[in-house]
C-alpha cells in the first residue's frame, strides 16, 4: 500500500460515499455482511499490501474473535462494546504470540506456517467442543444490543454500526500506512535486508503488523457474531481464510479501499450467481486467474488507473 497525499482524501470520500449508498442498492442485511467481510479482508490486505506478507490464515483470528465475543456475550453477559474490544484484543494477542515466531520465516515457509496454525485452530475448536459447541457452533446469543442507549437490532441500524466499525478501521489503516511505522513497513516490503542493515528491528515491525492484522480480523469476527446472533464454526475453517484472501485480492491490496470493493463485489456476485448457477465458484476462480495475470492491483487499481489518466490530462495544460 502506498501512502500518497492526494489520494487518501479521494479514497476516503469514495469509501464513505459507497458505505452511505450501499444499503440503498442491496438489502441492509447483505450490506452488513459486506461491511463485516470488508473489515476481515483489511486484515489480509494490510499484511500483503503494506508488508508483503501473504497470510492464508487470517480466518484463525477472525474465528478466535468470534468465539471470544460469542462466549462473553452469552455466558458472561458482557455488553456490546466490551465484547468487541475483547474480540479485537484476543485476535491481537494470539497474532502477536504466533507472529513473533512466524515472522522468522520467509516466503513460502511463512505462508505454510499461517496455514498450519489456521488448521490447528480449527481442530482445537473441534476438540474443545464443550466450550465451542463443536460442529454445531455456539447459539443462544442475545439478540438485542444497545449502543450508547440506542438499539441496533433492526437491519438498518445494524448496518450503520457495521459500516461505522469498518470505516473506523479503514481510517486507522490509512493512518498507519501514512505514519512513520507504515513507511518502515513499506521499506521492509521493498527490501528487507536493506532495512535490516539500516538498523530497523525488522522482526519486531513484522510482528507488530501481524498483531495489527490479527486485531482487525478478531474485530471482524466479533462483528460477525453480533450480526448473526450465533457463532458459526465456519468462521474458523480454512475456507474463511481463503475467502478473505480472495476478497482482498479481488478488491486490490494496494489500497485499503480495495477491501470494501472486493467484499462488495464478491458478496453481490456470489449472491446473484449462486441463484443462477451453483458452480459460481468456478467463475470466481477464473476471475482470480485473470486478476493475477492482468490486473494485480485488483478492482481498486482500475479506479487508480482512471484517476491517473485524469492526472495526466490535467498536468498537460
Amino acid at each position, binding site marked *: 500500500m502506498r501512502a500518497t497525499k492526494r489520494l487518501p482524501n479521494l479514497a476516503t470520500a469514495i469509501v464513505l460515499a459507497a458505505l452511505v449508498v450501499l444499503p440503498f442498492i442491496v*438489502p441492509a*442485511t447483505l450490506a452488513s455482511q459486506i461491511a463485516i467481510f470488508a473489515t476481515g479482508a483489511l486484515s489480509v490486505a494490510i499484511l500483503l499490501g503494506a508488508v508483503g506478507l501473504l497470510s492464508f490464515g487470517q480466518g484463525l483470528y477472525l474465528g478466535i474473535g468470534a468465539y471470544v465475543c460469542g462466549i462473553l456475550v452469552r455466558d458472561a453477559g458482557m455488553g456490546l462494546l466490551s465484547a468487541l474490544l475483547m474480540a479485537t484484543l484476543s485476535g491481537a494477542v494470539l497474532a502477536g504470540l504466533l507472529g513473533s515466531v512466524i515472522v522468522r520465516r520467509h516466503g513460502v515457509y511463512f505462508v505454510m506456517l499461517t496455514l498450519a496454525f489456521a488448521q490447528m485452530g480449527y481442530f482445537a475448536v473441534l476438540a474443545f467442543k464443550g466450550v465451542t459447541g463443536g*460442529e454445531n457452533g455456539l447459539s443462544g446469543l442475545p439478540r438485542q444490543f444497545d449502543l450508547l442507549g440506542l438499539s441496533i437490532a433492526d437491519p438498518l441500524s445494524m448496518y450503520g454500526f457495521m459500516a461505522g466499525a469498518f470505516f473506523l478501521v479503514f481510517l486507522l489503516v490509512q493512518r498507519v500506512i501514512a505514519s512513520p511505522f507504515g513507511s518502515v513497513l513499506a521499506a521492509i516490503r521493498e527490501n528487507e535486508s536493506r532495512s535490516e542493515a539500516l538498523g530497523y528491528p525488522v522482526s519486531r515491525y513484522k510482528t507488530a503488523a501481524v498483531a495489527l492484522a490479527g486485531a482487525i480480523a478478531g474485530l471482524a469476527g466479533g462483528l460477525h457474531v453480533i450480526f*448473526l446472533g*450465533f457463532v458459526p464454526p465456519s468462521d474458523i475453517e480454512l475456507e474463511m481464510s481463503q475467502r478473505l484472501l480472495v476478497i482482498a485480492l479481488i478488491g486490490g491490496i494496494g489500497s485499503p479501499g480495495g477491501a470494501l470493493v472486493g467484499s462488495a463485489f464478491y458478496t453481490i456476485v456470489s449472491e446473484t450467481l*449462486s441463484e443462477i448457477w451453483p458452480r459460481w465458484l468456478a467463475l470466481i476462480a477464473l476471475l482470480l486467474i485473470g486478476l493475477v495475470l492482468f490486473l494485480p492491483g485488483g478492482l481498486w487499481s482500475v479506479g487508480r488507473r482512471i484517476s491517473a489518466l485524469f492526472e495526466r490530462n490535467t498536468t498537460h495544460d
Partner: protein
Amino acid sequence: MMDRRRILTGMAVAPLALAAPGIIRRANAESVLDVAAVYSLSGTFANVGAGLNDGSKWAFEQYGSAAGNKLNYVLLDDRGDAGEAVRKVQEAMTQRGIKHVIGCTNSAIALAVQKEVYARKGIYVNEAGADEVTGKDCNKASFRWPVACYSAVNATVRPLIDKFPNAKRWYTITGQYVFGDSLLSNCKDVFKEKGIEHVGNSYHSLSDREYSGYIATALSQNPDVLAICNFGNQTVDVVRQAISYGMKRNTKILAVWSTGLDQFQALGPENCEDVYFGANFWHGVDTPGGRRVAEIVKQKTGDVPNYLQACGYAVSQMLIEGINKANSTDIPAIVKALEGLSYEGPTGTEKIRPEDHQVVKDYYLMLGKAKSAMKDKNDLCDVVAATKALPPPEKTGCQMAASL
C-alpha cells in the same frame, strides 16, 4: 414513420400494458403464501442440500396450495455457510415478510436458523439430526422430522441384540464430535441395560479419512459386533475400510446412522451385503404416505425416492398439513394444530409430539443383501426391524414455553 405523439402515447401506455396482466391476475388470484426453504446448493454439503431441496420443492408442487393459499417456494441458498443461512433468513423475514421457514442442510444451520425464526415469531420445520434441535435448544416455533440419536441407537442396537443373543462383545468406532458422542452415549446406555460387553471404543475426528488404525484396534479385540457411530461420508468410509480388512468374516457391522439408498449406492452391493444399517427412511416400505412421495419422485426422476428427497418432502408436508388443519396461515394457530397432529408421512402414520415438537416415526434396521438376491438396482437392503423409539420428553432436556 411514427409521429412523435404516437411514440409518446405508446410509451405512456406500455407500462400499463405490461402491468395489466398482473393487475388482472391479482384481482382474480387467491392469496399466495411465500415459504422460505433454507438449503445449500453449493459448498461442502451441496450433495445433501440438492436432494433435500428437490424433495421440499416437489412436495409444494404436489400439494399446490394450503388452506386456500397458493404455495410459493422461495429457495434461500446458504452455500453451506451457517452464517449465510441466518443472514438470508433475517432478510427474508424482515424485508420480505416471510414467516414460514423450512429446511436445513446440517445441524449447525438448523440450530442457528431455529433461534432466528423463533426470535422473529415465525415457524420453522427442519430435518436436522442433532439431539439439541428438540432437546435443550427446542423452542415453540420449531419442529423436526427425522428422529435423532436416541431413536437411531435404540431402534438398531436393541433389535440386533435380540437377534443375536450370543453376540456379547461390541466394539464402537465413534466420531469425536457432538453427534458422534451422542450416538455413543446412547449405545452405552443400551449396553449397560442389556449386559453387553463394550470391549472398546475408538474415536476419530471430523476430518479423518484413514481408519485402518482404528480398525486394527477393533480387530484386536475380537468383537462380535462393530457399531459405527458417525455420519455422512465417514460412515461409508469406515464400512468400506472395515470390510477391506476382512472384518465381515467374524464380526457383524452396524452403521447406526445412515442415509440409506445414496450411501448404499456409494458402497455398492458387494460392500452392503451382510452389513446392518440404520435409516430414517426406505423406499421399499409401502405406506400411503410413502406412495405419495414415490409418485412425485418417479414423475421427476423416473427413480425411487432416496432419504434426502423423502426428508425434504416430509418437512414441507408437515408445514402444509399444519396449515390445512389450522385452516389459516397464522403462526400460533399452525403451531397449535401441529402439536399432536397425526398424518400420513413418508414412513407411514406419523405423529408430532407436543412436548418437544419431535415427530414420532419409525426408524429402520436394515440388512444388506447379496447381489444375486437383488430384484432391481435399488433393492440393496431389506428392512429387518421398524421401531418407534423416542426418549421420554422429560429426558430430552427440552423446556418449551407454554405459548409462542
